[in-house]
């Protein structure tokens, strides 16, 4: 990689959920408000030419283009250890066991994998690409990414996009709450205008309700044995764009038909039976209803699922789908890894051809300058009897052709010789 020698060396180091426990990651984490300052500080360290910092809850990574060569150990790299030590007030020795380090081609691969969400805790999650883009925007604003990192990061975004479109890595949901929301969408299409009924209280049911409300459900009803508790839950989930209401627990069955999705988590035994389901469907004029039973023991009689128009999913059903989706993502990640490998190759090839391209350009420019110089001299000599336009065009074409023919062997040699040599390196 002679280009990297010219333009600097690529180094990526960081900690993530697999290498460092939360207490170490916490010490490294940089809030968004301080990211610009941290990036600027890193970019101004001696020997650092360009820099970008990615800080999320699962990883903190530093991508730098620096003066050193690929063989210099991290601790001997000027600037970077000093930055880590000074900015985070943590001795480098303490960080060392948790830090991972990638150079040149491996750094490119790691960046592509991170942007494509292949290195995430939940493989295929979509947030990471937005976070990398945010870090890139900040680094651009402070002038910390230029000729090497800027195109590299833009390439990483294209790779991530390719992975998303050519594989189904992000197409299935993997949390129980999002599986429930996905199922609701399969029944109702858009959740806009739909009513959610929350029966009982619990962390998981709250989360599922939040997810459904985020998908556009506009009304939330809460029913609990303690009315004050129901009010408190409704208040905690209320947003300005939605309507909330409390149904007294003793009136639950009279009011259930108002809800399209019922999330239940009382654990008080079967409060919804098959008979309730039939009555409910009758009151709803056969419009479907979706029961999400998070309680153990179950709140909904399993046979209620047999009533046409009633869909009952308990915690095991939801977990089963989440697991299947996890597996599906893992399967898709193999295809995604192949795309990343191919893209690293392509990037490497492009990079290795860059020096040859520069030399060719230089040769062509100097030959053209020489040609123009000679043309001008000839024109001066013939100033007494100037050439006609036609004659000028013929001379121009002749000199161009002559230059091209003279340069051809040199240019071919440059093109052929440069690539294998760089590949060997």
């Amino acid at each position, binding site marked *: 990689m002679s280009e990297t020698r010219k333009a600097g060396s690529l180094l990526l180091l960081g900690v993530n959920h697999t290498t460092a426990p939360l207490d170490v990651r916490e010490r490294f984490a940089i809030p968004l408000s301080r990211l610009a300052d941290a990036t600027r500080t890193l970019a101004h360290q001696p020997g650092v030419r360009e820099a970008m910092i990615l800080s999320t809850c699962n990883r903190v990574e530093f991508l730098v283009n620096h003066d050193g060569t690929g063989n210099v150990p991290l601790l001997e790299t000027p600037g970077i250890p000093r930055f880590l030590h000074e900015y985070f007030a943590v001795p480098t020795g303490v960080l060392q066991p948790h830090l991972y380090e990638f150079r040149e081609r491996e750094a490119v691969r790691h960046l592509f994998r991170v942007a494509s969400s292949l290195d995430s805790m939940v493989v295929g999650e979509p947030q990471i690409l937005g976070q990398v883009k945010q870090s890139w925007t900040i680094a651009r604003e402070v002038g910390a990414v230029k000729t090497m990192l800027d195109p590299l990061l833009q390439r990483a975004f294209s790779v991530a996009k390719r992975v998303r479109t050519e594989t189904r890595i992000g*197409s299935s949901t993997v949390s129980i709450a999002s599986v429930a929301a996905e199922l609701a969408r399969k029944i109702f299409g858009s959740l806009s205008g739909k009513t959610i009924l929350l029966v009982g209280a619990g962390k998981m049911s709250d989360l599922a309700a939040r997810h459904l409300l985020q998908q556009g459900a506009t009304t939330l009803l809460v029913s609990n044995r303690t009315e004050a508790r129901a009010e408190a839950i409704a208040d905690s989930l209320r947003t300005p764009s939605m309507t909330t209401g409390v149904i007294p627990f003793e009136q639950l069955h009279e009011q259930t038909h108002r809800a399209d999705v019922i999330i239940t988590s009382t654990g008080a035994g079967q409060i919804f039976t098959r008979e309730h389901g039939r009555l409910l469907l009758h009151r709803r004029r056969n419009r479907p209803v979706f029961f999400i039973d998070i309680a153990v023991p179950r709140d909904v009689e399993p046979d209620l699922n047999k009533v046409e128009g009633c869909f009952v999913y308990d915690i095991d059903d939801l977990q089963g789908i989440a697991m299947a989706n996890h597996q599906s993502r893992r399967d898709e990640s193999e295809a995604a890894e192949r795309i990343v490998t191919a893209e690293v190759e392509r990037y490497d090839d492009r990079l290795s051809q860059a020096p040859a391209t520069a030399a060719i350009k230089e040769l062509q420019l100097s030959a053209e300058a020489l040609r123009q110089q000679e043309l001008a001299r000839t024109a001066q000599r013939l100033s007494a009897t100037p050439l006609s336009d036609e004659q000028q065009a013929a001379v121009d074409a002749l000199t161009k052709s002559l230059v091209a023919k003279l340069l051809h062997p040199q240019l071919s040699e440059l093109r052929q010789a440069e690539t294998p040599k760089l590949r060997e390196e």
Partner: protein
Amino acid sequence: MSLIWLRVAVLLYGVAALAVLPAALYNRPQWRRLAMPSALGGVFFHFVALVEMLVATHRALPVDTHETLSVLGLLLVVGFLVLAAKYRTASFGIFLLPVAVLLTLVPAFRPGQELIVYPFIRTGWLLLHVVLLLAAYAALFLSLVASLLYLIQERRLKQKRGAPVRMWLPPLETTDQIAQKALVFGLPCMTAGLLIGSVAALQTVGGAFFADPKVLLSLAMWVAYVAMIFIRRHSGLRGRRAVYLSSFVFLVVLAVWAANQLSLVHRFQTP
């Protein structure tokens, strides 16, 4: 020349019918990109073939059995394209496109021998009669397909098999809406089509027209159609029972079509 365009249309419908399988079943966008333009191209060539054929035979409407079936095929593909554009689903193509291929395949290679000899074959009213009734049949078939898809999706959701994202069918409510809207669209088409046909027949055949088995069955078909819409809208009938109801009305439609052979006033025959 019109036959060549019709064959091109059949070929394109065939490509679309094959491409729609991976597009809908495995959610492969690249196959969708092949299926949609193929279906659209098929509609274009089909339309060109139809116009050329009518111009060449100096007629304003399709009169032979095969021509009529081919127009029905065209309407089904148009229905599929409208649904794909509006609801972003290719699932309906799995059923509609092969039927369209079959309906167009025979006319493309063997023009019909039997035709209805209308006394005023060039009038726009009769064209309207034919097109409106075919649109009503297409709408009914589409509604039947939608009801079937609803049933399949409902079963899959109840069996809790596989990941929900992999399910290739549109959401239940969307499918139900499509079924209802297709019926609501088909009703005025059927009513107007039957009325125009009746007025035209009265002028040429007279009162005997209402004693014809084909005409009586057509009236029964209209009543069944209206009853089906009423029941579905009033009781919110969905799922299995909706499929039964749609299938029953579809059978009545097939009986009406078959009654062409028994009719004295509306019969496809060899000239």
